[in-house]
Protein backbone atom coordinates (compact mmCIF):
# COMPACT_ATOMS: atom_id res chain seq x y z
CA UNK A 1 0.00 0.00 0.00
CA UNK A 2 1.28 3.45 -0.89
CA UNK A 3 1.52 6.29 1.61
CA UNK A 4 -1.72 8.29 1.67
CA UNK A 5 0.13 11.55 2.10
CA UNK A 6 2.81 11.47 -0.63
CA UNK A 7 1.47 8.54 -2.72
CA UNK A 8 5.09 7.73 -3.55
CA UNK A 9 6.61 5.50 -0.91
CA UNK A 10 5.35 2.30 0.68
CA UNK A 11 3.20 2.91 3.75
CA UNK A 12 4.77 1.45 6.90
CA UNK A 13 2.98 3.38 9.63
CA UNK A 14 -0.64 2.75 10.41
CA UNK A 15 -2.44 5.47 12.36
CA UNK A 16 -5.82 4.84 13.86
CA UNK A 17 -7.94 7.42 15.60
CA UNK A 18 -11.45 7.67 16.92
CA UNK A 19 -13.17 11.01 16.60
CA UNK A 20 -16.77 11.36 17.73
CA UNK A 21 -17.04 7.61 17.88
CA UNK A 22 -16.01 7.18 14.27
CA UNK A 23 -12.73 5.48 13.44
CA UNK A 24 -10.42 7.05 10.89
CA UNK A 25 -7.31 5.35 9.60
CA UNK A 26 -4.26 6.50 7.73
CA UNK A 27 -1.38 4.62 6.18
CA UNK A 28 1.78 6.68 5.95
CA UNK A 29 5.37 6.05 4.91
CA UNK A 30 8.10 6.51 7.49
CA UNK A 31 9.19 9.83 6.08
CA UNK A 32 5.73 11.39 5.98
CA UNK A 33 4.91 9.95 9.39
CA UNK A 34 7.99 11.63 10.81
CA UNK A 35 7.26 14.84 8.92
CA UNK A 36 3.72 14.93 10.25
CA UNK A 37 4.91 14.26 13.75
CA UNK A 38 4.05 10.58 14.11
CA UNK A 39 7.38 9.28 15.32
CA UNK A 40 7.61 7.48 18.63
CA UNK A 41 7.45 10.59 20.73
CA UNK A 42 4.13 11.55 19.29
CA UNK A 43 2.35 8.30 19.98
CA UNK A 44 0.47 9.86 22.81
CA UNK A 45 -1.00 12.69 20.80
CA UNK A 46 -3.94 12.95 18.56
CA UNK A 47 -3.17 15.09 15.54
CA UNK A 48 -5.81 16.70 13.48
CA UNK A 49 -5.63 14.19 10.67
CA UNK A 50 -8.36 15.58 8.40
CA UNK A 51 -6.30 18.77 8.08
CA UNK A 52 -3.48 16.82 6.49
CA UNK A 53 -5.57 15.75 3.55
CA UNK A 54 -7.43 18.66 2.10
CA UNK A 55 -10.58 16.61 2.10
CA UNK A 56 -12.94 19.47 2.90
CA UNK A 57 -12.58 20.70 -0.65
CA UNK A 58 -15.08 18.47 -2.39
CA UNK A 59 -15.19 17.42 -6.02
CA UNK A 60 -17.05 20.56 -7.02
CA UNK A 61 -14.17 22.69 -5.79
CA UNK A 62 -11.74 20.54 -7.73
CA UNK A 63 -13.79 21.04 -10.88
CA UNK A 64 -13.65 24.80 -10.36
CA UNK A 65 -9.89 24.60 -10.08
CA UNK A 66 -9.45 24.33 -13.84
CA UNK A 67 -8.66 27.99 -14.48
CA UNK A 68 -5.04 27.77 -13.46
CA UNK A 69 -3.97 31.09 -14.94
CA UNK A 70 -6.07 33.11 -12.50
CA UNK A 71 -3.73 34.05 -9.67
CA UNK A 72 -3.86 36.24 -6.59
CA UNK A 73 -1.91 39.43 -7.37
CA UNK A 74 -0.45 39.61 -3.89
CA UNK A 75 0.91 36.12 -3.23
CA UNK A 76 0.71 34.44 -6.64
CA UNK A 77 -1.51 31.67 -5.34
CA UNK A 78 -4.03 30.11 -7.76
CA UNK A 79 -7.32 28.50 -6.78
CA UNK A 80 -5.80 25.23 -7.95
CA UNK A 81 -3.00 25.65 -5.37
CA UNK A 82 -5.56 26.23 -2.62
CA UNK A 83 -7.52 23.09 -3.48
CA UNK A 84 -4.36 21.00 -3.76
CA UNK A 85 -2.84 22.09 -0.46
CA UNK A 86 -6.00 22.87 1.53
CA UNK A 87 -4.33 26.14 2.44
CA UNK A 88 -5.20 29.64 1.34
CA UNK A 89 -2.25 31.83 0.26
CA UNK A 90 -2.98 35.17 1.89
CA UNK A 91 -5.78 37.44 3.10
CA UNK A 92 -6.31 38.82 -0.43
CA UNK A 93 -6.94 35.32 -1.80
CA UNK A 94 -10.22 35.27 0.13
CA UNK A 95 -11.34 38.34 -1.83
CA UNK A 96 -10.01 37.10 -5.13
CA UNK A 97 -11.52 33.61 -4.91
CA UNK A 98 -14.44 34.42 -2.61
CA UNK A 99 -17.18 32.96 -4.81
CA UNK A 100 -15.21 29.80 -5.48
CA UNK A 101 -14.34 29.29 -1.81
CA UNK A 102 -17.83 29.97 -0.51
CA UNK A 103 -19.35 26.52 -1.22
CA UNK A 104 -16.51 24.84 0.69
CA UNK A 105 -16.84 27.31 3.56
CA UNK A 106 -20.56 26.60 3.67
CA UNK A 107 -19.91 22.85 3.75
CA UNK A 108 -17.35 23.14 6.58
CA UNK A 109 -19.27 25.49 8.84
CA UNK A 110 -22.86 25.21 7.70
CA UNK A 111 -22.97 29.01 7.67
CA UNK A 112 -21.25 31.73 5.70
CA UNK A 113 -21.64 34.85 7.79
CA UNK A 114 -19.40 35.89 10.68
CA UNK A 115 -21.23 37.04 13.81
CA UNK A 116 -18.42 37.18 16.37
CA UNK A 117 -16.00 39.86 17.45
CA UNK A 118 -14.27 42.40 15.23
CA UNK A 119 -10.61 43.50 15.60
CA UNK A 120 -10.46 46.48 17.95
CA UNK A 121 -8.95 48.92 15.46
CA UNK A 122 -11.62 48.23 12.85
CA UNK A 123 -14.38 49.35 15.18
CA UNK A 124 -14.87 52.94 14.14
CA UNK A 125 -17.84 54.57 15.80
CA UNK A 126 -20.37 54.12 13.01
CA UNK A 127 -19.52 50.54 12.18
CA UNK A 128 -19.56 49.74 15.88
CA UNK A 129 -23.22 50.60 16.26
CA UNK A 130 -24.13 49.01 12.93
CA UNK A 131 -22.35 45.89 13.98
CA UNK A 132 -24.17 45.81 17.27
CA UNK A 133 -27.63 45.87 15.71
CA UNK A 134 -26.65 43.21 13.25
CA UNK A 135 -25.26 41.02 16.01
CA UNK A 136 -28.49 41.09 18.04
CA UNK A 137 -30.49 39.92 15.01
CA UNK A 138 -27.95 37.33 14.03
CA UNK A 139 -27.48 36.18 17.56
CA UNK A 140 -31.15 35.26 17.70
CA UNK A 141 -30.85 33.46 14.38
CA UNK A 142 -27.82 31.50 15.54
CA UNK A 143 -29.44 30.66 18.87
CA UNK A 144 -32.52 29.44 17.04
CA UNK A 145 -30.38 27.20 14.87
CA UNK A 146 -28.69 25.85 17.97
CA UNK A 147 -32.03 25.24 19.66
CA UNK A 148 -33.19 23.27 16.65
CA UNK A 149 -30.04 21.14 16.84
CA UNK A 150 -30.57 20.59 20.54
CA UNK A 151 -34.12 19.45 19.91
CA UNK A 152 -32.97 17.12 17.12
CA UNK A 153 -30.47 15.64 19.56
CA UNK A 154 -33.28 15.33 22.10
CA UNK A 155 -31.33 17.56 24.42
CA UNK A 156 -34.37 19.33 25.78
CA UNK A 157 -32.68 20.81 28.79
CA UNK A 158 -30.25 22.68 26.55
CA UNK A 159 -33.08 23.62 24.18
CA UNK A 160 -35.06 25.15 27.04
CA UNK A 161 -32.09 27.27 28.09
CA UNK A 162 -31.69 28.48 24.52
CA UNK A 163 -35.41 29.19 24.18
CA UNK A 164 -35.28 31.43 27.26
CA UNK A 165 -32.27 33.25 25.91
CA UNK A 166 -33.97 33.90 22.58
CA UNK A 167 -37.01 35.21 24.40
CA UNK A 168 -34.82 37.51 26.46
CA UNK A 169 -33.05 38.87 23.39
CA UNK A 170 -36.34 39.45 21.58
CA UNK A 171 -37.71 41.35 24.54
CA UNK A 172 -34.58 43.51 24.71
CA UNK A 173 -35.03 44.65 21.12
Amino acid at each position, binding site marked *: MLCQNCSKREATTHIK*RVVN*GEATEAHLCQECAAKLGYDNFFDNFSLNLPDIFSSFFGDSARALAGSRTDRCEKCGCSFDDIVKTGMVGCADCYDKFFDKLLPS*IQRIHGRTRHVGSVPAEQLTETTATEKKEETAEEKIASLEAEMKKAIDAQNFEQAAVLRDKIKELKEDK
Partner: protein
Amino acid sequence: MTWYQNSGKDSDIVLSTRVRLARNLRDFPFPNRLDKNECRKVNETVRDVLLAGDDSLFYTEMSALNSYQAVSLAEKHLISPEFASDSTGRALILSKDEDVSVMLCEEDHVRLQVIYPGLSLKEAFEKAEQLDSKLASSLNIAFDDRIGYLTQCPTNLGTGMRASVMLHLPALSQSTAISRLAATVAKLGLTLRGAYGEGSRPTGDIYQLSNQVTLGISEEAAIQNLQSIAEQIIAQERQARQSLLKDDVFIDKIYRSYGILRSAHMMSCDEFTSLISYVRIGACAGLLDVPVEKLTYLLVKMQPATINADAGEKYTSAQRDVIRADAVKKALE
Protein backbone atom coordinates in the same frame (compact mmCIF):
# COMPACT_ATOMS: atom_id res chain seq x y z
CA MET B 1 1.89 28.40 38.97
CA THR B 2 1.32 26.34 35.85
CA TRP B 3 -2.01 24.66 35.09
CA TYR B 4 -0.59 21.25 36.02
CA GLN B 5 0.55 22.39 39.47
CA ASN B 6 -2.83 23.74 40.36
CA SER B 7 -6.44 22.67 40.52
CA GLY B 8 -9.57 24.62 39.63
CA LYS B 9 -13.32 24.34 39.40
CA ASP B 10 -14.54 20.75 38.86
CA SER B 11 -10.97 19.45 38.97
CA ASP B 12 -12.25 16.00 39.91
CA ILE B 13 -13.15 15.67 36.24
CA VAL B 14 -11.76 18.65 34.31
CA LEU B 15 -7.97 18.73 34.02
CA SER B 16 -7.66 21.92 32.02
CA THR B 17 -9.42 24.50 29.88
CA ARG B 18 -7.86 25.97 26.77
CA VAL B 19 -8.85 28.82 24.48
CA ARG B 20 -6.93 29.29 21.25
CA LEU B 21 -7.28 32.17 18.78
CA ALA B 22 -5.97 32.09 15.20
CA ARG B 23 -4.88 35.48 13.83
CA ASN B 24 -2.97 36.66 10.77
CA LEU B 25 -1.29 39.87 9.71
CA ARG B 26 -2.91 41.38 6.63
CA ASP B 27 0.36 42.58 5.13
CA PHE B 28 2.03 39.16 4.93
CA PRO B 29 1.04 36.04 2.99
CA PHE B 30 0.02 33.09 5.20
CA PRO B 31 2.86 30.93 6.61
CA ASN B 32 2.74 28.29 3.84
CA ARG B 33 3.89 31.01 1.40
CA LEU B 34 6.57 32.59 3.58
CA ASP B 35 10.28 31.84 3.58
CA LYS B 36 12.39 31.69 6.73
CA ASN B 37 13.31 35.38 6.68
CA GLU B 38 9.75 36.56 6.16
CA CYS B 39 8.65 34.28 8.99
CA ARG B 40 11.20 35.92 11.24
CA LYS B 41 9.82 39.34 10.28
CA VAL B 42 6.32 38.23 11.24
CA ASN B 43 7.56 36.66 14.49
CA GLU B 44 9.48 39.74 15.55
CA THR B 45 6.65 42.10 14.66
CA VAL B 46 4.27 40.17 16.90
CA ARG B 47 6.92 39.79 19.60
CA ASP B 48 7.49 43.56 19.75
CA VAL B 49 3.77 44.19 20.25
CA LEU B 50 3.03 41.49 22.81
CA LEU B 51 6.18 41.82 24.89
CA ALA B 52 5.90 45.62 25.16
CA GLY B 53 5.18 46.49 28.79
CA ASP B 54 4.69 42.86 29.79
CA ASP B 55 7.65 41.23 31.52
CA SER B 56 5.78 37.99 32.25
CA LEU B 57 6.28 36.93 28.61
CA PHE B 58 9.43 35.74 26.89
CA TYR B 59 10.27 34.92 23.29
CA THR B 60 12.28 32.09 21.80
CA GLU B 61 12.92 30.82 18.30
CA MET B 62 11.97 27.17 18.10
CA SER B 63 15.33 26.34 16.51
CA ALA B 64 16.94 27.28 19.85
CA LEU B 65 15.25 24.29 21.53
CA ASN B 66 16.31 20.67 21.19
CA SER B 67 13.72 18.13 20.15
CA TYR B 68 12.97 16.96 23.73
CA GLN B 69 12.34 20.49 24.89
CA ALA B 70 10.03 21.12 21.94
CA VAL B 71 8.07 17.89 22.35
CA SER B 72 7.87 18.44 26.10
CA LEU B 73 6.02 21.71 25.43
CA ALA B 74 3.54 19.74 23.35
CA GLU B 75 3.18 17.14 26.10
CA LYS B 76 2.25 19.98 28.44
CA HIS B 77 -0.35 21.10 25.87
CA LEU B 78 1.35 24.47 25.43
CA ILE B 79 2.02 24.00 21.71
CA SER B 80 0.69 21.65 19.05
CA PRO B 81 2.57 18.43 18.25
CA GLU B 82 2.83 19.66 14.69
CA PHE B 83 4.51 22.87 15.87
CA ALA B 84 7.02 20.82 17.88
CA SER B 85 7.88 18.60 14.92
CA ASP B 86 9.34 21.33 12.70
CA SER B 87 11.20 24.39 14.00
CA THR B 88 11.79 26.10 10.64
CA GLY B 89 10.80 29.75 10.74
CA ARG B 90 8.85 29.28 13.93
CA ALA B 91 9.01 31.05 17.28
CA LEU B 92 7.19 30.87 20.59
CA ILE B 93 6.07 33.41 23.15
CA LEU B 94 5.49 31.85 26.56
CA SER B 95 4.51 33.30 29.92
CA LYS B 96 6.44 32.38 33.05
CA ASP B 97 3.41 30.56 34.46
CA GLU B 98 2.92 28.83 31.11
CA ASP B 99 -0.71 29.98 31.06
CA VAL B 100 -0.14 32.01 27.89
CA SER B 101 1.60 30.53 24.87
CA VAL B 102 1.72 32.06 21.40
CA MET B 103 2.83 29.93 18.48
CA LEU B 104 4.24 32.09 15.72
CA CYS B 105 4.14 30.92 12.11
CA GLU B 106 2.40 27.67 12.88
CA GLU B 107 -0.55 27.17 10.55
CA ASP B 108 -1.38 30.84 11.05
CA HIS B 109 0.92 33.77 11.84
CA VAL B 110 -0.39 33.88 15.40
CA ARG B 111 -1.94 31.06 17.43
CA LEU B 112 -2.58 32.54 20.82
CA GLN B 113 -3.42 30.12 23.62
CA VAL B 114 -4.51 30.49 27.23
CA ILE B 115 -4.63 27.37 29.42
CA TYR B 116 -6.03 27.22 32.96
CA PRO B 117 -6.65 24.35 35.39
CA GLY B 118 -10.19 23.08 35.91
CA LEU B 119 -13.25 24.39 34.11
CA SER B 120 -12.70 28.11 33.47
CA LEU B 121 -13.78 28.87 29.93
CA LYS B 122 -14.87 32.44 30.59
CA GLU B 123 -11.68 33.37 32.40
CA ALA B 124 -9.49 31.81 29.72
CA PHE B 125 -11.43 33.56 26.96
CA GLU B 126 -11.20 36.92 28.73
CA LYS B 127 -7.44 36.59 29.03
CA ALA B 128 -7.14 35.60 25.36
CA GLU B 129 -9.33 38.52 24.34
CA GLN B 130 -7.15 40.90 26.30
CA LEU B 131 -4.02 39.77 24.43
CA ASP B 132 -5.95 39.81 21.17
CA SER B 133 -6.90 43.48 21.68
CA LYS B 134 -3.28 44.29 22.32
CA LEU B 135 -2.41 42.74 18.95
CA ALA B 136 -5.25 44.46 17.11
CA SER B 137 -4.46 47.87 18.56
CA SER B 138 -1.03 47.96 16.87
CA LEU B 139 -1.24 45.51 13.99
CA ASN B 140 -3.31 45.24 10.85
CA ILE B 141 -5.15 41.96 11.44
CA ALA B 142 -6.54 40.04 8.44
CA PHE B 143 -10.32 40.31 8.78
CA ASP B 144 -13.31 40.32 6.45
CA ASP B 145 -16.77 41.62 7.39
CA ARG B 146 -18.46 38.62 5.79
CA ILE B 147 -16.32 35.72 6.95
CA GLY B 148 -14.53 37.13 9.99
CA TYR B 149 -10.89 36.50 10.87
CA LEU B 150 -9.03 35.19 7.84
CA THR B 151 -7.05 32.03 8.42
CA GLN B 152 -4.79 29.88 6.30
CA CYS B 153 -7.17 26.96 6.58
CA PRO B 154 -10.86 27.73 5.94
CA THR B 155 -11.86 25.45 8.83
CA ASN B 156 -10.90 28.25 11.27
CA LEU B 157 -12.62 31.20 9.55
CA GLY B 158 -15.00 33.36 11.55
CA THR B 159 -13.93 33.73 15.15
CA GLY B 160 -10.76 31.68 14.65
CA MET B 161 -11.44 30.42 18.15
CA ARG B 162 -11.04 26.86 19.42
CA ALA B 163 -12.00 26.34 23.02
CA SER B 164 -11.53 22.98 24.65
CA VAL B 165 -11.74 21.22 27.99
CA MET B 166 -9.75 18.14 28.93
CA LEU B 167 -11.99 15.69 30.75
CA HIS B 168 -11.23 12.58 32.79
CA LEU B 169 -14.15 10.23 32.08
CA PRO B 170 -13.25 6.77 33.43
CA ALA B 171 -16.78 5.89 34.57
CA LEU B 172 -18.51 6.90 31.33
CA SER B 173 -15.81 5.02 29.39
CA GLN B 174 -16.73 1.82 31.23
CA SER B 175 -20.10 1.74 29.55
CA THR B 176 -21.28 2.48 26.05
CA ALA B 177 -22.39 5.92 27.25
CA ILE B 178 -19.29 7.56 25.87
CA SER B 179 -19.92 6.68 22.22
CA ARG B 180 -23.53 7.85 22.47
CA LEU B 181 -22.27 11.04 24.07
CA ALA B 182 -19.77 11.58 21.27
CA ALA B 183 -22.49 11.22 18.65
CA THR B 184 -24.71 13.69 20.51
CA VAL B 185 -22.08 16.40 20.93
CA ALA B 186 -21.22 16.09 17.22
CA LYS B 187 -24.79 17.18 16.42
CA LEU B 188 -24.29 20.23 18.64
CA GLY B 189 -21.21 21.37 16.75
CA LEU B 190 -18.69 19.98 19.24
CA THR B 191 -16.04 17.26 19.04
CA LEU B 192 -15.19 14.71 21.72
CA ARG B 193 -11.96 12.84 21.13
CA GLY B 194 -9.37 10.92 23.10
CA ALA B 195 -6.53 13.08 24.34
CA TYR B 196 -3.95 10.30 24.48
CA GLY B 197 -3.44 7.04 22.66
CA GLU B 198 -5.12 5.32 19.75
CA GLY B 199 -7.98 2.90 19.50
CA SER B 200 -11.52 3.08 20.73
CA ARG B 201 -10.69 3.75 24.37
CA PRO B 202 -8.04 6.42 24.98
CA THR B 203 -5.27 5.74 27.49
CA GLY B 204 -6.14 7.04 30.93
CA ASP B 205 -9.69 7.78 29.78
CA ILE B 206 -8.82 11.40 29.10
CA TYR B 207 -10.90 13.15 26.48
CA GLN B 208 -10.93 16.52 24.84
CA LEU B 209 -14.19 18.33 24.20
CA SER B 210 -13.92 21.26 21.78
CA ASN B 211 -16.02 23.46 19.52
CA GLN B 212 -15.95 22.51 15.86
CA VAL B 213 -17.73 25.36 14.11
CA THR B 214 -16.11 28.82 14.09
CA LEU B 215 -18.15 30.68 11.48
CA GLY B 216 -21.65 31.99 12.12
CA ILE B 217 -21.46 31.62 15.87
CA SER B 218 -20.13 34.28 18.23
CA GLU B 219 -17.33 33.56 20.69
CA GLU B 220 -19.72 33.97 23.62
CA ALA B 221 -22.28 31.60 22.16
CA ALA B 222 -19.63 28.99 21.33
CA ILE B 223 -18.19 29.21 24.86
CA GLN B 224 -21.63 29.05 26.44
CA ASN B 225 -22.49 26.01 24.35
CA LEU B 226 -19.26 24.25 25.32
CA GLN B 227 -19.73 25.20 28.97
CA SER B 228 -23.24 23.79 29.21
CA ILE B 229 -22.36 20.53 27.43
CA ALA B 230 -19.25 20.16 29.61
CA GLU B 231 -21.37 20.67 32.72
CA GLN B 232 -23.82 17.98 31.60
CA ILE B 233 -21.00 15.53 30.89
CA ILE B 234 -19.46 16.30 34.31
CA ALA B 235 -22.79 15.60 36.03
CA GLN B 236 -23.17 12.32 34.14
CA GLU B 237 -19.63 11.23 34.96
CA ARG B 238 -20.14 11.97 38.66
CA GLN B 239 -23.32 9.95 38.67
CA ALA B 240 -21.66 7.04 36.85
CA ARG B 241 -18.79 7.13 39.36
CA GLN B 242 -21.24 6.83 42.24
CA SER B 243 -22.49 3.48 41.02
CA LEU B 244 -18.99 2.27 40.04
CA LEU B 245 -17.78 2.96 43.56
CA LYS B 246 -20.31 0.51 44.94
CA ASP B 247 -18.56 -2.29 43.09
CA ASP B 248 -15.90 -4.12 45.13
CA VAL B 249 -14.08 -5.26 42.00
CA PHE B 250 -13.67 -1.65 40.92
CA ILE B 251 -12.56 -0.50 44.37
CA ASP B 252 -10.03 -3.31 44.39
CA LYS B 253 -8.68 -2.01 41.08
CA ILE B 254 -8.15 1.43 42.60
CA TYR B 255 -6.12 0.09 45.52
CA ARG B 256 -4.16 -2.33 43.32
CA SER B 257 -3.27 0.49 40.91
CA TYR B 258 -2.08 2.57 43.83
CA GLY B 259 -0.04 -0.38 45.06
CA ILE B 260 1.65 -0.94 41.70
CA LEU B 261 2.46 2.76 41.32
CA ARG B 262 4.07 2.73 44.77
CA SER B 263 6.17 -0.38 44.25
CA ALA B 264 7.05 -1.06 40.59
CA HIS B 265 10.66 -0.83 39.45
CA MET B 266 9.82 -0.10 35.81
CA MET B 267 6.80 1.72 34.48
CA SER B 268 5.96 2.49 30.84
CA CYS B 269 4.11 5.71 30.08
CA ASP B 270 1.02 3.82 28.91
CA GLU B 271 0.86 1.67 32.04
CA PHE B 272 1.41 4.72 34.20
CA THR B 273 -1.36 6.67 32.46
CA SER B 274 -3.83 3.81 32.91
CA LEU B 275 -2.98 3.21 36.57
CA ILE B 276 -3.04 6.84 37.58
CA SER B 277 -6.53 7.09 36.11
CA TYR B 278 -7.79 4.69 38.81
CA VAL B 279 -5.84 6.46 41.51
CA ARG B 280 -7.40 9.73 40.42
CA ILE B 281 -10.94 8.39 40.91
CA GLY B 282 -9.90 6.96 44.28
CA ALA B 283 -8.44 10.28 45.36
CA CYS B 284 -11.50 12.25 44.20
CA ALA B 285 -13.79 9.82 46.04
CA GLY B 286 -11.78 10.18 49.24
CA LEU B 287 -10.54 6.57 49.25
CA LEU B 288 -6.92 7.62 48.84
CA ASP B 289 -5.25 10.54 50.53
CA VAL B 290 -3.53 12.08 47.49
CA PRO B 291 -4.10 15.69 46.36
CA VAL B 292 -5.51 15.76 42.85
CA GLU B 293 -2.98 18.45 41.78
CA LYS B 294 -0.19 16.00 42.47
CA LEU B 295 -1.75 13.48 40.10
CA THR B 296 -2.16 16.06 37.34
CA TYR B 297 1.44 17.12 37.87
CA LEU B 298 2.68 13.54 37.54
CA LEU B 299 0.51 12.91 34.50
CA VAL B 300 2.25 15.80 32.73
CA LYS B 301 5.75 15.36 34.09
CA MET B 302 6.04 11.59 33.53
CA GLN B 303 5.66 11.84 29.76
CA PRO B 304 8.68 10.69 27.76
CA ALA B 305 10.05 13.92 26.30
CA THR B 306 9.34 15.86 29.49
CA ILE B 307 11.43 13.38 31.52
CA ASN B 308 14.30 13.85 29.09
CA ALA B 309 13.88 17.62 28.87
CA ASP B 310 13.77 18.05 32.67
CA ALA B 311 16.88 15.92 33.13
CA GLY B 312 18.68 17.34 30.12
CA GLU B 313 19.53 13.78 29.09
CA LYS B 314 18.83 11.54 26.11
CA TYR B 315 17.45 8.62 28.10
CA THR B 316 16.29 5.53 26.23
CA SER B 317 12.75 4.29 26.72
CA ALA B 318 13.91 1.55 29.14
CA GLN B 319 15.94 4.02 31.20
CA ARG B 320 12.94 6.32 31.37
CA ASP B 321 10.76 3.47 32.62
CA VAL B 322 13.04 3.05 35.63
CA ILE B 323 13.23 6.80 36.25
CA ARG B 324 9.45 7.11 35.94
CA ALA B 325 8.76 4.25 38.37
CA ASP B 326 11.19 5.79 40.84
CA ALA B 327 9.78 9.32 40.59
CA VAL B 328 6.18 8.09 40.95
CA LYS B 329 7.11 5.97 43.97
CA LYS B 330 8.70 8.98 45.68
CA ALA B 331 5.80 11.27 44.87
CA LEU B 332 3.20 8.87 46.29
CA GLU B 333 5.11 7.85 49.39
